[in-house]
């Protein structure tokens, strides 16, 4: 009888439970708490948190390669096969209005300048002993774009996926806390009061031709960014064409919701105790914060640099929106502008660099993948 009970117990997870598993449960529960109580990126942190808890239940084999565990199947076909991030971009494209960017195309340069933190963090990671592919995956966190971070990490350093993805999404939700001190430090009150002229209306034809032109130029120059860029612009063409409302709605809602579930589960599933409980994970979080700060600074400082040559000055506060994190970063620009002068309405002006930041991060990721692979 004793032998039988012993054999049964050995087959349960109870006897195989270790402290490291319990620590990971605590991390998973923290994400669930932050999602429910604090509303921090709940669409992702909730499934990620639960998947962390589930994958750290001993002997479940959820992330086993052979025989294939359920979460491994999601991860393998969703992320390793590069299916989920491009589908997320299809939905993002269908949700994005490029009107403010088309009305003021020079704000595209702010989206490029705000990639500064990506490269600062890249060098920081190398100094801390990470390899080049790992440093690229960590650096791209500074682009403040979750799906691009995931896509780059799966390509270059899949073992860091949990840490980079969590870092990107955590800091994206903390944009209203991270950015304002940097923006205030780098601008004067006079600069923050600059009022920008209302944007011109953009015609439907311009909006329809925009995704085609962007796909052509960007994919010819940076072919490695094509999977994400093509889907991003296709989604936008669905939206702007006005003739496939059903497809546009499906991409924005049903499809987006479905792939978000798979994205969250797959990312959380990579966070087993053995992979995540390492000093490197803490370093990734630290470097991610550095990347965000320097990207914000890059955007603001470049806006000030542009003002040296522009007759009609731009408010440097919109430069920080170049870090992507749509539309949170644009809202931060609006808030700080209105604090300086209640008549200042920067939201639409900041949406230009904000969506340019998404394109800029895609380009940075494309260069990383093609140069470091």
């Amino acid at each position, binding site marked *: 009888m004793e032998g039988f009970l012993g054999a049964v117990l050995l087959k349960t997870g109870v006897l195989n439970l270790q402290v490291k598993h319990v620590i990971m449960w605590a991390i998973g529960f923290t994400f669930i708490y932050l999602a429910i109580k604090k509303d921090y990126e709940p669409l992702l942190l909730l499934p990620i948190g639960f998947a962390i808890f589930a994958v750290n239940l001993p002997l479940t084999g959820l992330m086993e390669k052979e025989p294939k565990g359920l979460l491994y199947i999601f991860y393998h076909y969703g992320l390793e096969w590069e299916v989920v991030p491009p589908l997320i971009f299809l939905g993002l494209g269908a949700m994005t209005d490029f009107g403010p960017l088309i009305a003021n195309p020079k704000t595209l340069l702010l989206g490029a300048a705000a990639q500064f933190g990506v490269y600062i963090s890249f060098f920081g990671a190398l100094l801390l002993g990470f390899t080049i592919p790992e440093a690229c995956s960590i650096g791209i966190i500074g682009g403040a774009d979750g799906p691009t971070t995931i896509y780059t990490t799966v390509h270059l350093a899949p073992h860091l996926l949990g840490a980079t993805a969590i870092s990107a999404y955590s800091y994206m939700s903390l944009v209203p806390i991270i950015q304002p001190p940097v923006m205030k430090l780098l601008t004067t009150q006079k600069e923050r009061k600059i009022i920008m002229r209302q944007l011109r209306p953009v015609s439907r034809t311009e909006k329809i*031709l925009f995704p085609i032109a962007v796909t052509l*130029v960007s994919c010819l*120059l940076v072919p490695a960014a094509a999977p994400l860029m093509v889907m991003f612009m296709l989604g936008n063409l669905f939206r702007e064409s006005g003739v496939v409302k059903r497809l546009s709605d499906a991409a924005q809602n049903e499809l987006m919701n479905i792939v978000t579930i798979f994205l969250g589960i797959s990312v959380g599933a990579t966070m087993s105790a053995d992979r995540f409980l390492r000093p490197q994970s803490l370093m990734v979080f630290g470097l991610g914060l550095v990347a965000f700060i320097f990207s914000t600074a890059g955007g603001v400082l470049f806006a000030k640099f542009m003002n040296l040559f522009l007759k009609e000055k731009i408010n440097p506060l919109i430069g920080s929106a170049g870090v992507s994190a749509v539309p949170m970063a644009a809202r931060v620009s609006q808030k700080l502008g209105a604090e300086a002068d209640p008549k200042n309405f920067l939201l639409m002006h900041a949406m230009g660099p904000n969506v340019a930041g998404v394109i800029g991060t895609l380009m940075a990721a494309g260069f*990383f993948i093609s140069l470091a692979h």
Partner: protein
Amino acid sequence: MWKEALRIFGIGFPGVFLTLALLCLSVYALSALVRLWEKK
């Protein structure tokens, strides 16, 4: 390793700027053409 890192930075960061600058010019050109066409 540092030589490789500098190569990635030296191509990547200016590359991002160049790509977005070209996109900027393309959008200006596109808008100008569309507005010209719409006027006719």
